[in-house]
Protein backbone atom coordinates (compact mmCIF):
# COMPACT_ATOMS: atom_id res chain seq x y z
CA UNK A 1 0.00 0.00 0.00
CA UNK A 2 1.46 3.33 -0.96
CA UNK A 3 1.40 6.26 1.42
CA UNK A 4 -1.37 7.91 -0.61
CA UNK A 5 -3.58 4.84 -0.61
CA UNK A 6 -3.02 4.64 3.12
CA UNK A 7 -4.13 8.26 3.45
CA UNK A 8 -7.29 7.44 1.50
CA UNK A 9 -7.94 4.34 3.57
CA UNK A 10 -7.46 6.09 6.89
CA UNK A 11 -9.43 9.25 6.18
CA UNK A 12 -12.10 8.46 3.67
CA UNK A 13 -12.49 9.85 0.18
CA UNK A 14 -13.79 13.32 0.97
CA UNK A 15 -11.22 14.10 3.64
CA UNK A 16 -8.36 12.62 1.61
CA UNK A 17 -9.24 14.87 -1.32
CA UNK A 18 -9.48 17.86 1.03
CA UNK A 19 -6.09 17.00 2.56
CA UNK A 20 -4.38 16.71 -0.79
CA UNK A 21 -6.14 19.20 -3.06
CA UNK A 22 -5.92 22.33 -0.90
CA UNK A 23 -2.26 21.94 0.11
CA UNK A 24 -1.44 21.11 -3.51
CA UNK A 25 -3.11 24.34 -4.66
CA UNK A 26 -1.20 26.31 -2.01
CA UNK A 27 2.10 24.61 -2.76
CA UNK A 28 1.93 24.92 -6.52
CA UNK A 29 -0.09 28.05 -7.30
CA UNK A 30 0.84 30.24 -4.35
CA UNK A 31 4.34 29.17 -3.37
CA UNK A 32 6.36 27.36 -6.03
CA UNK A 33 5.04 28.61 -9.38
CA UNK A 34 5.31 32.33 -8.50
CA UNK A 35 8.90 31.85 -7.28
CA UNK A 36 9.86 30.00 -10.45
CA UNK A 37 8.16 32.63 -12.58
CA UNK A 38 10.10 35.34 -10.75
CA UNK A 39 13.38 33.53 -11.42
CA UNK A 40 12.38 33.07 -15.06
CA UNK A 41 11.62 36.79 -15.33
CA UNK A 42 15.02 37.65 -13.89
CA UNK A 43 16.75 35.67 -16.63
CA UNK A 44 15.48 37.45 -19.74
CA UNK A 45 15.06 40.96 -21.02
CA UNK A 46 13.03 42.64 -23.70
CA UNK A 47 15.20 43.22 -26.70
CA UNK A 48 14.69 46.96 -27.13
CA UNK A 49 17.20 47.30 -29.98
CA UNK A 50 15.18 44.99 -32.18
CA UNK A 51 12.04 46.67 -30.94
CA UNK A 52 13.32 50.11 -31.92
CA UNK A 53 14.32 48.83 -35.34
CA UNK A 54 10.82 47.43 -35.77
CA UNK A 55 9.25 50.69 -34.75
CA UNK A 56 11.44 52.66 -37.18
CA UNK A 57 10.46 50.24 -39.89
CA UNK A 58 6.79 50.72 -39.13
CA UNK A 59 6.96 54.48 -39.19
CA UNK A 60 8.76 54.40 -42.55
CA UNK A 61 6.13 52.12 -43.97
CA UNK A 62 3.46 54.35 -42.50
CA UNK A 63 4.86 57.31 -44.44
CA UNK A 64 4.86 55.26 -47.58
CA UNK A 65 1.25 54.34 -46.93
CA UNK A 66 0.27 58.00 -46.61
CA UNK A 67 2.02 58.80 -49.88
CA UNK A 68 0.14 56.02 -51.61
CA UNK A 69 -3.10 57.25 -50.16
CA UNK A 70 -2.37 60.74 -51.47
CA UNK A 71 -1.50 59.42 -54.87
CA UNK A 72 -4.73 57.43 -55.08
CA UNK A 73 -6.79 60.39 -53.95
CA UNK A 74 -5.10 62.63 -56.56
CA UNK A 75 -5.72 60.18 -59.36
CA UNK A 76 -9.36 59.88 -58.31
CA UNK A 77 -9.65 63.68 -58.33
CA UNK A 78 -8.26 63.69 -61.85
CA UNK A 79 -11.32 61.67 -62.78
CA UNK A 80 -9.73 58.27 -63.21
CA UNK A 81 -12.28 55.48 -62.85
CA UNK A 82 -11.83 52.93 -60.08
CA UNK A 83 -11.37 50.21 -62.68
CA UNK A 84 -8.33 51.92 -64.23
CA UNK A 85 -5.37 49.47 -64.11
CA UNK A 86 -3.05 52.12 -62.65
CA UNK A 87 -5.45 52.73 -59.79
CA UNK A 88 -6.06 49.02 -59.26
CA UNK A 89 -2.35 48.27 -58.92
CA UNK A 90 -1.90 51.19 -56.51
CA UNK A 91 -4.83 49.94 -54.51
CA UNK A 92 -3.26 46.48 -54.33
CA UNK A 93 0.06 47.91 -53.22
CA UNK A 94 -1.79 49.87 -50.56
CA UNK A 95 -3.52 46.75 -49.23
CA UNK A 96 -0.29 44.77 -49.12
CA UNK A 97 1.55 47.50 -47.25
CA UNK A 98 -1.31 47.85 -44.82
CA UNK A 99 -1.19 44.12 -44.08
CA UNK A 100 2.55 44.24 -43.59
CA UNK A 101 2.28 47.10 -41.09
CA UNK A 102 -0.40 45.29 -39.13
CA UNK A 103 1.81 42.22 -38.85
CA UNK A 104 4.76 44.29 -37.67
CA UNK A 105 2.55 46.01 -35.10
CA UNK A 106 1.61 42.61 -33.71
CA UNK A 107 5.30 41.85 -33.27
CA UNK A 108 5.86 45.01 -31.23
CA UNK A 109 3.05 44.00 -28.88
CA UNK A 110 5.13 40.97 -28.07
CA UNK A 111 8.69 42.25 -27.97
CA UNK A 112 11.40 39.64 -28.44
CA UNK A 113 12.58 38.07 -25.15
CA UNK A 114 16.27 37.35 -24.91
CA UNK A 115 17.54 35.00 -22.22
CA UNK A 116 20.78 36.21 -20.66
CA UNK A 117 22.28 36.97 -17.24
CA UNK A 118 22.23 40.67 -18.22
CA UNK A 119 19.99 41.70 -15.30
CA UNK A 120 22.42 40.25 -12.76
CA UNK A 121 25.45 41.65 -14.54
CA UNK A 122 23.80 45.06 -14.39
CA UNK A 123 23.65 44.88 -10.59
CA UNK A 124 27.26 43.74 -10.38
CA UNK A 125 28.39 46.67 -12.54
CA UNK A 126 26.23 49.38 -11.03
CA UNK A 127 28.41 50.80 -8.29
CA UNK A 128 25.64 52.68 -6.48
CA UNK A 129 23.33 49.69 -6.34
CA UNK A 130 26.17 47.41 -5.31
CA UNK A 131 27.08 49.73 -2.44
CA UNK A 132 23.47 49.88 -1.31
CA UNK A 133 23.22 46.10 -1.43
CA UNK A 134 26.34 45.71 0.70
CA UNK A 135 25.03 48.35 3.09
CA UNK A 136 21.79 46.40 3.41
CA UNK A 137 23.69 43.23 4.32
CA UNK A 138 25.91 45.02 6.80
CA UNK A 139 23.06 46.91 8.49
CA UNK A 140 20.86 43.83 8.72
CA UNK A 141 23.72 41.92 10.33
CA UNK A 142 24.23 44.74 12.81
CA UNK A 143 20.54 44.90 13.68
CA UNK A 144 20.47 41.12 14.18
CA UNK A 145 23.52 41.16 16.43
CA UNK A 146 22.30 44.12 18.49
CA UNK A 147 18.87 42.53 18.89
CA UNK A 148 20.44 39.26 20.05
CA UNK A 149 22.64 40.94 22.64
CA UNK A 150 19.82 43.10 23.98
CA UNK A 151 17.19 40.35 24.00
CA UNK A 152 19.05 37.42 25.51
CA UNK A 153 19.06 38.75 29.10
CA UNK A 154 15.39 39.70 28.86
CA UNK A 155 14.42 36.28 27.49
CA UNK A 156 16.52 34.53 30.14
CA UNK A 157 15.05 36.58 32.96
CA UNK A 158 11.49 35.94 31.78
CA UNK A 159 12.00 32.23 31.27
CA UNK A 160 14.12 31.32 34.28
CA UNK A 161 14.30 34.01 36.94
CA UNK A 162 11.04 35.99 37.08
CA UNK A 163 8.36 34.84 39.55
CA UNK A 164 5.21 33.70 37.75
CA UNK A 165 3.09 36.82 38.39
CA UNK A 166 5.84 39.17 37.36
CA UNK A 167 6.58 37.08 34.29
CA UNK A 168 2.95 37.35 33.19
CA UNK A 169 3.01 41.15 33.44
CA UNK A 170 6.38 41.45 31.69
CA UNK A 171 5.16 39.13 28.96
CA UNK A 172 2.16 41.40 28.47
CA UNK A 173 4.64 44.26 28.16
CA UNK A 174 6.33 42.44 25.31
CA UNK A 175 3.16 41.45 23.47
CA UNK A 176 1.70 44.97 23.28
CA UNK A 177 4.51 46.60 21.29
CA UNK A 178 4.92 43.36 19.30
CA UNK A 179 1.33 43.55 18.12
CA UNK A 180 1.42 47.25 17.25
CA UNK A 181 1.56 47.93 13.54
CA UNK A 182 5.11 48.07 12.15
CA UNK A 183 4.34 51.38 10.41
CA UNK A 184 3.19 53.00 13.63
CA UNK A 185 6.20 51.70 15.56
CA UNK A 186 8.41 53.30 12.94
CA UNK A 187 6.38 56.49 12.97
CA UNK A 188 6.91 56.74 16.74
CA UNK A 189 10.64 57.01 16.05
CA UNK A 190 10.10 59.57 13.32
CA UNK A 191 8.56 61.79 15.99
CA UNK A 192 11.53 61.18 18.28
CA UNK A 193 14.31 61.58 15.75
CA UNK A 194 13.22 64.28 13.32
CA UNK A 195 15.05 67.61 13.27
CA UNK A 196 12.32 69.27 15.32
CA UNK A 197 11.55 65.98 17.05
CA UNK A 198 11.27 65.12 20.70
CA UNK A 199 14.88 64.17 21.34
CA UNK A 200 16.35 67.25 19.69
CA UNK A 201 13.88 69.65 21.34
CA UNK A 202 14.23 67.98 24.71
CA UNK A 203 18.01 68.10 24.80
CA UNK A 204 18.42 71.56 23.28
CA UNK A 205 15.92 73.00 25.72
CA UNK A 206 17.61 71.26 28.60
CA UNK A 207 20.80 72.88 27.41
CA UNK A 208 22.55 69.58 26.80
CA UNK A 209 22.73 70.08 23.04
CA UNK A 210 24.02 73.18 21.28
CA UNK A 211 22.03 72.51 18.13
CA UNK A 212 19.79 69.70 16.86
CA UNK A 213 21.31 66.55 15.40
CA UNK A 214 20.33 65.38 11.89
CA UNK A 215 19.42 61.78 12.73
CA UNK A 216 17.41 61.24 9.58
CA UNK A 217 19.87 62.44 7.00
CA UNK A 218 21.84 59.23 6.72
CA UNK A 219 21.46 55.67 7.92
CA UNK A 220 21.38 56.31 11.68
CA UNK A 221 17.64 56.75 11.82
CA UNK A 222 17.01 53.67 9.68
CA UNK A 223 19.22 51.53 11.91
CA UNK A 224 17.59 52.77 15.13
CA UNK A 225 14.12 52.28 13.66
CA UNK A 226 14.86 48.80 12.35
CA UNK A 227 16.28 47.64 15.64
CA UNK A 228 13.18 48.91 17.41
CA UNK A 229 10.75 47.49 14.85
CA UNK A 230 12.21 43.98 14.76
CA UNK A 231 13.86 43.45 18.15
CA UNK A 232 10.91 41.55 19.60
CA UNK A 233 11.15 38.89 16.90
CA UNK A 234 14.33 37.87 18.70
CA UNK A 235 12.84 37.73 22.20
CA UNK A 236 10.06 35.22 21.66
CA UNK A 237 11.96 32.33 20.02
CA UNK A 238 14.81 32.70 22.54
CA UNK A 239 12.32 32.78 25.40
CA UNK A 240 10.53 29.67 24.10
CA UNK A 241 13.75 27.67 24.12
CA UNK A 242 15.02 28.93 27.47
CA UNK A 243 11.70 28.05 29.01
CA UNK A 244 12.31 24.39 28.26
CA UNK A 245 15.66 24.45 30.05
CA UNK A 246 15.46 22.40 33.25
CA UNK A 247 16.09 24.66 36.24
CA UNK A 248 17.92 21.74 37.92
CA UNK A 249 20.65 21.89 35.32
CA UNK A 250 21.45 25.46 36.29
CA UNK A 251 21.28 24.68 39.99
CA UNK A 252 23.53 21.67 39.58
CA UNK A 253 26.10 23.66 37.66
CA UNK A 254 25.95 26.38 40.26
CA UNK A 255 26.34 23.87 43.12
CA UNK A 256 29.36 22.45 41.38
CA UNK A 257 30.93 25.87 41.42
CA UNK A 258 30.24 27.17 37.95
CA UNK A 259 30.16 30.96 37.79
CA UNK A 260 27.42 33.06 36.33
CA UNK A 261 29.13 33.54 32.98
CA UNK A 262 29.98 29.87 32.67
CA UNK A 263 26.41 28.82 33.30
CA UNK A 264 25.31 30.96 30.40
CA UNK A 265 28.11 29.97 28.07
CA UNK A 266 28.01 26.24 28.79
CA UNK A 267 24.36 25.56 29.60
CA UNK A 268 21.81 28.26 28.78
CA UNK A 269 23.14 29.51 25.45
CA UNK A 270 23.84 26.05 24.00
CA UNK A 271 20.34 25.03 25.04
CA UNK A 272 18.83 28.12 23.41
CA UNK A 273 20.69 27.65 20.11
CA UNK A 274 17.73 26.72 17.90
CA UNK A 275 15.77 29.64 19.35
CA UNK A 276 18.64 32.06 18.79
CA UNK A 277 18.98 30.77 15.23
CA UNK A 278 15.28 31.28 14.49
CA UNK A 279 15.37 34.73 16.07
CA UNK A 280 18.42 35.70 14.05
CA UNK A 281 16.94 34.40 10.80
CA UNK A 282 13.64 36.21 11.34
CA UNK A 283 15.26 39.48 12.40
CA UNK A 284 17.73 39.43 9.53
CA UNK A 285 15.04 38.60 6.99
CA UNK A 286 12.78 41.39 8.25
CA UNK A 287 15.62 43.92 8.32
CA UNK A 288 16.96 43.05 4.88
CA UNK A 289 13.48 42.95 3.40
CA UNK A 290 11.97 46.03 5.03
CA UNK A 291 10.48 48.70 2.86
CA UNK A 292 8.59 50.63 5.54
CA UNK A 293 11.45 51.67 7.84
CA UNK A 294 13.79 53.26 5.27
CA UNK A 295 10.80 54.81 3.49
CA UNK A 296 9.79 56.57 6.69
CA UNK A 297 13.10 57.15 8.49
CA UNK A 298 15.56 57.29 5.61
CA UNK A 299 16.74 60.54 4.14
CA UNK A 300 17.08 61.22 0.42
CA UNK A 301 20.67 59.93 0.58
CA UNK A 302 19.95 56.64 2.30
CA UNK A 303 18.22 54.44 -0.26
CA UNK A 304 17.59 50.85 0.75
CA UNK A 305 17.84 47.82 -1.52
CA UNK A 306 14.09 47.16 -1.28
CA UNK A 307 13.43 50.72 -2.41
CA UNK A 308 15.48 50.13 -5.55
CA UNK A 309 13.52 46.95 -6.22
CA UNK A 310 10.29 48.87 -5.75
CA UNK A 311 11.31 51.53 -8.22
CA UNK A 312 12.24 48.92 -10.84
CA UNK A 313 8.66 47.73 -10.64
CA UNK A 314 6.70 50.93 -10.28
CA UNK A 315 8.89 53.82 -11.44
CA UNK A 316 11.27 52.22 -13.93
CA UNK A 317 8.86 49.77 -15.43
CA UNK A 318 11.55 47.10 -15.82
CA UNK A 319 10.11 44.05 -14.09
CA UNK A 320 12.87 41.77 -15.34
CA UNK A 321 15.54 43.89 -13.71
CA UNK A 322 13.40 44.12 -10.56
CA UNK A 323 12.94 40.33 -10.50
CA UNK A 324 16.72 39.85 -10.64
CA UNK A 325 17.23 42.24 -7.72
CA UNK A 326 14.46 40.50 -5.78
CA UNK A 327 16.05 37.11 -6.38
CA UNK A 328 19.41 38.43 -5.14
CA UNK A 329 17.68 39.52 -1.93
CA UNK A 330 16.01 36.12 -1.57
CA UNK A 331 19.33 34.39 -2.20
CA UNK A 332 20.94 36.52 0.50
CA UNK A 333 18.33 35.34 2.99
CA UNK A 334 18.87 31.70 1.99
CA UNK A 335 22.62 32.13 2.50
CA UNK A 336 21.94 33.62 5.91
CA UNK A 337 19.77 30.65 6.90
CA UNK A 338 22.62 28.31 5.91
CA UNK A 339 25.12 30.43 7.80
CA UNK A 340 23.01 30.27 10.95
CA UNK A 341 22.69 26.50 10.61
CA UNK A 342 26.47 26.29 10.47
CA UNK A 343 27.16 28.73 13.33
CA UNK A 344 24.56 27.34 15.71
CA UNK A 345 25.10 23.75 14.50
CA UNK A 346 21.38 23.13 14.02
CA UNK A 347 19.63 21.27 11.23
CA UNK A 348 17.07 22.90 8.95
CA UNK A 349 14.30 20.99 10.66
CA UNK A 350 15.34 22.28 14.08
CA UNK A 351 14.78 25.74 12.68
CA UNK A 352 11.50 25.14 10.92
CA UNK A 353 10.07 23.33 13.94
CA UNK A 354 10.66 26.44 16.06
CA UNK A 355 9.19 29.05 13.77
Amino acid sequence: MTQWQQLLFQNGKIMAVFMVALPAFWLVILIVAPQLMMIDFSLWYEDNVTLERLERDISQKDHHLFDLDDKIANLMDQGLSAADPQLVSLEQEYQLLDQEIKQLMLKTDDPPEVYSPKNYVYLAHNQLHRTIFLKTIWSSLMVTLIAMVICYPVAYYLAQVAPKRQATILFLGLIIPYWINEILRTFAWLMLLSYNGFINLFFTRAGLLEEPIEFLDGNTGVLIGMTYAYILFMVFPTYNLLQTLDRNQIDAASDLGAGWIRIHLRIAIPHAKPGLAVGAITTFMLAAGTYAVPAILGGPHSLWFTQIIYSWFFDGGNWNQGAAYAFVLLFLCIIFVMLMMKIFRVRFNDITRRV
Partner: protein
Amino acid sequence: MNYSRLYAPLMKIYLLVFFCYLFLPLLLMAIAAFNTPTIPSVIPWQGFTLQWFTLLFQDRLIWESVLNSLIIGIGVVLLAVPIGLSAALLLTRLQSRSQPFLYAILVSPILTPGVILGISTLIFWSQAGIGGGLFLTVIGQTTFIASFSMLIFMAQLQRLDPELEEAALDLGASHLQTYMKVIFPYLKPTFITAACISFLQSFENYNTTLFVIGADTTLTVKIASMIRLGLTPEVNALSVIFLGVTVMAAVIYTLLQKQEDTDAV
Protein backbone atom coordinates in the same frame (compact mmCIF):
# COMPACT_ATOMS: atom_id res chain seq x y z
CA MET B 1 22.50 31.60 44.80
CA ASN B 2 25.15 34.21 45.07
CA TYR B 3 24.99 35.24 41.45
CA SER B 4 21.35 36.23 41.64
CA ARG B 5 22.03 38.42 44.70
CA LEU B 6 24.85 40.10 42.85
CA TYR B 7 23.16 40.59 39.51
CA ALA B 8 19.54 41.03 40.57
CA PRO B 9 19.70 44.85 40.99
CA LEU B 10 21.59 45.22 37.72
CA MET B 11 19.01 43.08 36.00
CA LYS B 12 16.19 45.21 37.41
CA ILE B 13 17.76 48.37 35.98
CA TYR B 14 18.33 46.63 32.67
CA LEU B 15 14.69 45.55 32.45
CA LEU B 16 13.48 49.01 33.41
CA VAL B 17 15.54 50.60 30.63
CA PHE B 18 14.42 47.94 28.16
CA PHE B 19 10.72 48.44 28.82
CA CYS B 20 11.10 52.24 28.77
CA TYR B 21 12.73 51.79 25.37
CA LEU B 22 9.76 49.72 24.24
CA PHE B 23 7.01 51.95 25.59
CA LEU B 24 8.19 55.59 25.68
CA PRO B 25 8.08 56.06 21.87
CA LEU B 26 4.57 54.60 21.73
CA LEU B 27 3.45 56.74 24.65
CA LEU B 28 4.78 59.96 23.10
CA MET B 29 3.11 59.06 19.81
CA ALA B 30 -0.22 58.66 21.61
CA ILE B 31 0.14 61.86 23.66
CA ALA B 32 0.79 63.91 20.52
CA ALA B 33 -2.70 63.00 19.31
CA PHE B 34 -4.11 65.38 21.93
CA ASN B 35 -1.78 68.33 21.23
CA THR B 36 -2.98 71.29 19.15
CA PRO B 37 -0.15 71.95 16.59
CA THR B 38 -0.68 70.66 13.07
CA ILE B 39 2.64 68.83 13.14
CA PRO B 40 2.61 65.82 15.48
CA SER B 41 4.59 66.87 18.55
CA VAL B 42 4.61 66.70 22.31
CA ILE B 43 6.77 69.71 23.10
CA PRO B 44 5.86 72.51 23.09
CA TRP B 45 2.50 71.60 24.58
CA GLN B 46 -0.01 74.06 23.13
CA GLY B 47 -3.23 72.83 24.60
CA PHE B 48 -5.45 69.78 24.77
CA THR B 49 -7.66 69.04 21.79
CA LEU B 50 -9.79 66.25 20.35
CA GLN B 51 -9.98 67.83 16.90
CA TRP B 52 -7.63 65.23 15.37
CA PHE B 53 -10.04 62.49 16.30
CA THR B 54 -12.93 64.44 14.81
CA LEU B 55 -10.97 64.98 11.60
CA LEU B 56 -10.02 61.31 11.54
CA PHE B 57 -13.62 60.18 11.78
CA GLN B 58 -14.60 62.56 9.00
CA ASP B 59 -11.83 61.37 6.66
CA ARG B 60 -13.69 59.39 4.01
CA LEU B 61 -10.50 58.05 2.39
CA ILE B 62 -9.40 56.45 5.65
CA TRP B 63 -12.71 54.67 6.08
CA GLU B 64 -12.53 53.41 2.53
CA SER B 65 -9.10 51.96 3.27
CA VAL B 66 -10.45 50.37 6.47
CA LEU B 67 -13.20 48.74 4.41
CA ASN B 68 -10.59 47.38 1.98
CA SER B 69 -8.54 46.03 4.89
CA LEU B 70 -11.62 44.28 6.26
CA ILE B 71 -12.51 42.74 2.90
CA ILE B 72 -8.95 41.51 2.39
CA GLY B 73 -8.78 40.24 5.97
CA ILE B 74 -11.97 38.21 5.57
CA GLY B 75 -10.78 36.86 2.22
CA VAL B 76 -7.48 35.79 3.76
CA VAL B 77 -9.24 34.07 6.68
CA LEU B 78 -11.53 32.19 4.28
CA LEU B 79 -8.51 30.93 2.33
CA ALA B 80 -5.78 30.56 4.94
CA VAL B 81 -7.78 28.69 7.59
CA PRO B 82 -8.98 25.81 5.35
CA ILE B 83 -5.59 25.61 3.63
CA GLY B 84 -3.77 25.62 6.99
CA LEU B 85 -6.10 22.94 8.37
CA SER B 86 -5.81 20.67 5.35
CA ALA B 87 -2.02 20.99 5.25
CA ALA B 88 -1.75 20.36 8.99
CA LEU B 89 -3.87 17.20 8.64
CA LEU B 90 -1.79 16.07 5.68
CA LEU B 91 1.52 16.62 7.45
CA THR B 92 0.43 14.94 10.71
CA ARG B 93 -1.04 11.94 8.89
CA LEU B 94 1.19 11.38 5.91
CA GLN B 95 3.59 8.52 6.67
CA SER B 96 6.25 9.31 4.17
CA ARG B 97 9.90 10.10 3.93
CA SER B 98 9.02 13.22 1.95
CA GLN B 99 7.10 14.65 4.92
CA PRO B 100 9.98 16.76 6.36
CA PHE B 101 10.72 18.15 2.91
CA LEU B 102 7.07 19.05 2.33
CA TYR B 103 6.94 20.64 5.77
CA ALA B 104 10.00 22.76 5.01
CA ILE B 105 8.51 24.09 1.77
CA LEU B 106 5.17 24.88 3.38
CA VAL B 107 6.87 26.78 6.22
CA SER B 108 9.32 28.60 3.94
CA PRO B 109 6.97 31.53 3.12
CA ILE B 110 7.34 32.65 6.77
CA LEU B 111 11.11 32.82 6.31
CA THR B 112 10.85 34.68 3.00
CA PRO B 113 10.92 38.50 2.95
CA GLY B 114 7.44 39.90 2.41
CA VAL B 115 8.49 41.97 -0.58
CA ILE B 116 9.60 38.81 -2.40
CA LEU B 117 6.21 37.18 -1.87
CA GLY B 118 4.52 40.32 -3.18
CA ILE B 119 6.77 40.53 -6.23
CA SER B 120 6.48 36.87 -7.20
CA THR B 121 2.68 36.98 -6.82
CA LEU B 122 2.50 40.13 -8.94
CA ILE B 123 4.63 38.62 -11.71
CA PHE B 124 2.85 35.25 -11.72
CA TRP B 125 -0.71 36.59 -11.92
CA SER B 126 0.16 39.30 -14.41
CA GLN B 127 0.74 36.45 -16.85
CA ALA B 128 -2.94 35.62 -16.51
CA GLY B 129 -3.80 39.28 -17.03
CA ILE B 130 -4.64 39.88 -13.36
CA GLY B 131 -3.09 43.07 -11.97
CA GLY B 132 -2.71 44.50 -8.48
CA GLY B 133 -5.84 44.94 -6.40
CA LEU B 134 -7.85 43.44 -3.57
CA PHE B 135 -7.94 39.94 -5.09
CA LEU B 136 -4.21 39.77 -5.63
CA THR B 137 -3.59 41.10 -2.12
CA VAL B 138 -5.67 38.26 -0.68
CA ILE B 139 -3.64 35.77 -2.75
CA GLY B 140 -0.27 37.27 -1.87
CA GLN B 141 -0.99 37.46 1.86
CA THR B 142 -2.47 33.95 1.98
CA THR B 143 0.84 32.56 0.71
CA PHE B 144 2.50 33.10 4.07
CA ILE B 145 -0.47 33.48 6.42
CA ALA B 146 -1.53 29.92 5.55
CA SER B 147 1.81 28.80 7.01
CA PHE B 148 0.99 30.41 10.36
CA SER B 149 -2.47 28.88 10.27
CA MET B 150 -0.94 25.47 9.47
CA LEU B 151 1.47 25.68 12.43
CA ILE B 152 -1.39 26.58 14.79
CA PHE B 153 -3.44 23.56 13.66
CA MET B 154 -0.43 21.24 13.75
CA ALA B 155 0.37 22.14 17.35
CA GLN B 156 -3.16 21.20 18.38
CA LEU B 157 -3.39 18.07 16.20
CA GLN B 158 -0.22 16.68 17.76
CA ARG B 159 -1.99 16.74 21.12
CA LEU B 160 -5.05 14.91 19.78
CA ASP B 161 -5.47 11.51 21.41
CA PRO B 162 -5.54 8.99 18.51
CA GLU B 163 -7.75 6.70 20.58
CA LEU B 164 -10.64 9.14 20.29
CA GLU B 165 -10.61 8.71 16.56
CA GLU B 166 -10.18 4.94 16.74
CA ALA B 167 -13.07 4.68 19.17
CA ALA B 168 -15.35 6.62 16.82
CA LEU B 169 -14.38 4.43 13.88
CA ASP B 170 -14.78 1.23 15.92
CA LEU B 171 -18.28 2.31 16.93
CA GLY B 172 -19.25 2.49 13.29
CA ALA B 173 -18.81 6.17 12.45
CA SER B 174 -17.75 6.88 8.89
CA HIS B 175 -14.54 8.76 8.26
CA LEU B 176 -16.46 11.94 7.51
CA GLN B 177 -18.57 11.52 10.65
CA THR B 178 -15.43 11.05 12.71
CA TYR B 179 -14.10 14.33 11.40
CA MET B 180 -17.39 16.17 11.83
CA LYS B 181 -18.26 14.87 15.29
CA VAL B 182 -14.87 14.25 16.92
CA ILE B 183 -11.95 15.99 15.31
CA PHE B 184 -13.44 19.31 14.22
CA PRO B 185 -15.25 19.91 17.53
CA TYR B 186 -11.93 19.19 19.26
CA LEU B 187 -10.31 21.81 17.01
CA LYS B 188 -13.03 24.45 17.54
CA PRO B 189 -10.92 26.83 19.69
CA THR B 190 -8.07 26.36 17.22
CA PHE B 191 -10.29 27.53 14.36
CA ILE B 192 -10.92 30.73 16.29
CA THR B 193 -7.23 31.25 17.08
CA ALA B 194 -6.20 30.59 13.48
CA ALA B 195 -8.88 32.94 12.15
CA CYS B 196 -7.89 35.74 14.56
CA ILE B 197 -4.17 35.43 13.86
CA SER B 198 -4.78 35.27 10.10
CA PHE B 199 -6.98 38.35 10.20
CA LEU B 200 -4.51 40.34 12.30
CA GLN B 201 -1.57 39.35 10.10
CA SER B 202 -3.52 40.45 7.06
CA PHE B 203 -4.70 43.72 8.61
CA GLU B 204 -1.19 44.76 9.65
CA ASN B 205 0.68 43.61 6.58
CA TYR B 206 2.63 46.19 4.63
CA ASN B 207 5.61 44.76 2.77
CA THR B 208 3.73 42.15 0.71
CA THR B 209 0.64 44.29 0.26
CA LEU B 210 2.64 47.21 -1.15
CA PHE B 211 3.45 45.24 -4.30
CA VAL B 212 0.07 43.64 -4.97
CA ILE B 213 -2.43 46.30 -3.90
CA GLY B 214 -2.33 48.17 -7.23
CA ALA B 215 -4.28 51.44 -7.22
CA ASP B 216 -6.31 50.43 -4.15
CA THR B 217 -5.21 51.05 -0.59
CA THR B 218 -5.45 49.33 2.79
CA LEU B 219 -5.36 51.04 6.16
CA THR B 220 -1.69 50.17 6.72
CA VAL B 221 -0.72 51.38 3.25
CA LYS B 222 -2.80 54.52 3.83
CA ILE B 223 -1.06 55.26 7.15
CA ALA B 224 2.35 54.86 5.52
CA SER B 225 1.48 57.25 2.71
CA MET B 226 0.03 59.74 5.21
CA ILE B 227 3.28 59.67 7.16
CA ARG B 228 5.35 60.24 4.05
CA LEU B 229 3.17 62.83 2.34
CA GLY B 230 1.16 65.25 4.39
CA LEU B 231 1.64 64.21 7.96
CA THR B 232 -1.00 65.36 10.46
CA PRO B 233 -1.77 64.31 14.05
CA GLU B 234 -4.64 62.28 12.57
CA VAL B 235 -2.05 59.50 12.35
CA ASN B 236 -1.46 59.89 16.08
CA ALA B 237 -5.19 59.73 16.74
CA LEU B 238 -5.25 56.47 14.76
CA SER B 239 -2.32 55.18 16.78
CA VAL B 240 -4.26 55.86 20.01
CA ILE B 241 -7.06 53.64 18.69
CA PHE B 242 -4.57 50.95 17.62
CA LEU B 243 -2.88 51.08 21.03
CA GLY B 244 -6.20 50.87 22.85
CA VAL B 245 -7.37 47.86 20.86
CA THR B 246 -3.98 46.14 21.15
CA VAL B 247 -3.77 46.62 24.92
CA MET B 248 -7.26 45.20 25.34
CA ALA B 249 -6.56 42.26 23.05
CA ALA B 250 -3.25 41.54 24.81
CA VAL B 251 -4.87 41.61 28.25
CA ILE B 252 -7.64 39.26 27.13
CA TYR B 253 -5.08 36.96 25.51
CA THR B 254 -2.99 36.88 28.70
CA LEU B 255 -6.03 36.17 30.88
CA LEU B 256 -7.14 33.34 28.58
CA GLN B 257 -3.62 31.95 28.58
CA LYS B 258 -3.57 32.01 32.38
CA GLN B 259 -6.93 30.28 32.53
CA GLU B 260 -5.63 27.57 30.23
CA ASP B 261 -2.61 27.09 32.51
CA THR B 262 -4.76 26.72 35.63
CA ASP B 263 -7.12 24.40 33.73
CA ALA B 264 -4.18 22.28 32.70
CA VAL B 265 -3.00 21.98 36.31
